[in-house]
Structures are given as C-alpha cells and as structure tokens.
C-alpha cells in the first residue's frame, strides 16, 4: 500500500492520537499526519495540503464535521479525498446525512483498530 497523508479532525487531542495509532496498527504507512480540532481548522489544512485520507469527528465546536465535509467537497483538490466520520452520533439519520454531504464512510465510537482497518483500507485501494 502506498504511503499516505492523513488529516485527523477531532476536538479531543487524545482521540486524535488514538485514531493515528489505530491507522498505524491497521498497517497504513503514514507519511504525514495533520491534526485539526474543528472543521474550520481542517478546511484550512485541506486547502494547503494534498491529502489521501481524512477522518473526522462530527460534534465539534466552531464548525462541526458535517459542515466541514460539505465545504470540503467544494475544494477542487479535495473533492475525491476519502472522508470517514468517526463519531458517537450513531443514529441512522446522522449516517445518511453524512454520506449525502460527501462522507465516504462512518465509524461509531467506541471503535476497535480492526473496525478502522475494515473501513479505511478499501477506500485507499478504491
């Protein structure tokens, strides 16, 4: 698998570290791991950096993950970047809304490294 540039978006720094560790445990070769604590910061990073994968929380201050995905799809260079939502919001309505706004996948917290692997690897291959 080719080396990847990843952006992890979560207002919890501990959760960002856990997601990064889970990606490494899943076997990803992470060239660069960028972190943002809300959607607004994440948009700035997405405009300035080529990304292969984004993992984002939904409930965050300033700009939530759903609005982030919606605006991200308006950035030409990020239109096709896989975005996986990782969130405590497990309702079907949230999943449908996230996917309709352009998310590529959905993982519910709490999650195992295996779940990260199952959802993320196919997106990088595809």
């Amino acid at each position, binding site marked *: 698998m080719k080396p990847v540039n990843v952006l992890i978006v979560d*207002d*919890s*720094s*501990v*959760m960002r*570290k*856990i997601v990064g*560790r889970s990606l490494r445990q899943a076997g990803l070769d992470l060239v660069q791991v960028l972190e943002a604590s809300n959607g607004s910061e994440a948009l700035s990073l997405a405009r300035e950096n080529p990304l292969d994968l984004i993992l984002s929380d939904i*409930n*965050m*201050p300033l700009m939530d993950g759903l609005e982030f995905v919606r605006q991200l799809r308006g950035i030409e260079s990020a239109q096709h970047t896989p975005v996986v939502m990782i*969130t*405590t*919001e*497990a*309702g*079907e*309505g*949230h999943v449908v809304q996230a996917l309709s706004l352009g998310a590529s996948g959905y993982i*519910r*917290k*709490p*999650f*195992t490294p295996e779940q990260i692997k199952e959802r993320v690897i196919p997106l990088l291959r595809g």
Partner: protein
Amino acid sequence: MDQAITAEPERVRIHLSARAAGPGAQAVGKAADAQQPVARIDWREELAKAASEVFDVMVGAPLTAPPEPRPPFIPDFAAMVGIAGSLCGSVSLRTTADCARSITAKMLGGDEVGAAEAAQDAFGEVCNMIAGSFKGRISGLADGCALSVPTVIFGRDFTLFSLARGEHYEVTFEFEGKLLSVSLDLQG
C-alpha cells in the same frame, strides 16, 4: 414510571406515564405502536452496558463490580455530557484524579500521560462515548437526541447539580482498584 417513545413526521416524542415497572425499568415503543410499550428499558442496566463497552473497547481495561463493603469514595474529577431532544438530561462520570490519570494512561498506551490536560481531555471523551453508546442502545434515541460537548470539572470543592430534577440512576464500578461512578439524570 413507564416511558414510551413515538415517532411523528418530524420528531420523536416521549410519553410518560405513572405505571411502575420496577426500579429503573421503563417501557419504550415506536411510531406504529404509539402509546403501546413494546420493550422494557432498564436505564441503569443500559448505562452500565454502555460504560462497560467504552472501557472494554477504548480504554482497554474492564470495569468490575466494586468491593463490598464499599470503601469511602470522594470523587474530585467529573465529566458531564448533556442530552437534549426526545430525552433530556445528562450523563456524568465521577472518579478521582488518580483514576482519571490511570484511564488516560490506558487509552494512550502509556504515552504522553503527564499533562493534566490529557486527563481532562480523555475523561471528557470517555464520558462522551458512554453517553453516545447509551443513546445508541435505546430505540428511537440515536436520532432523536443530540449530545453536548463534554464538560470536565476537577477539584475537591464542587457539587454537580442537574437541573433535570427528575429520575437519577447511578452505577458504581471499580477500575484497577479505584472507584468510578456513572450517572444518568433524566428531566422530570
């Protein structure tokens, strides 16, 4: 008190009735069964299951039953997440600063645990995941409720007071020899 959830076109409504079903047991139904409970919910049990799931999966160490007789427990570290929507109230988590640091160390695998901010962050996130797991377990709540961003409070001189002023459910666990309690306060 029994409780039934019925879905309407734009929202989910909870019907409260005074039918007692035993401690902590309530009844929940869905749109087609309006007013007719289809399943009993033991709020306390669902809260305990949610907490156990989060500790098993994300913390990597299980919660166990507390010893009896229970030793003195004076929590000085608390996190709270509000629930709003078809169910209103809050989920809170209380323990000692020492236990919060242990939880953080487990979550991070021993890395970068020293900072107090890491314990606050981790503890708030654990509470957030317990609240999310809890509402995901109750039919009709996953989409019917929103969670607030977690609030973390620490120090020896505080009292958590819920304006929900309704029903209160609490489960106490032991985590690596330290006590920890999870509470659910529902609006009356």
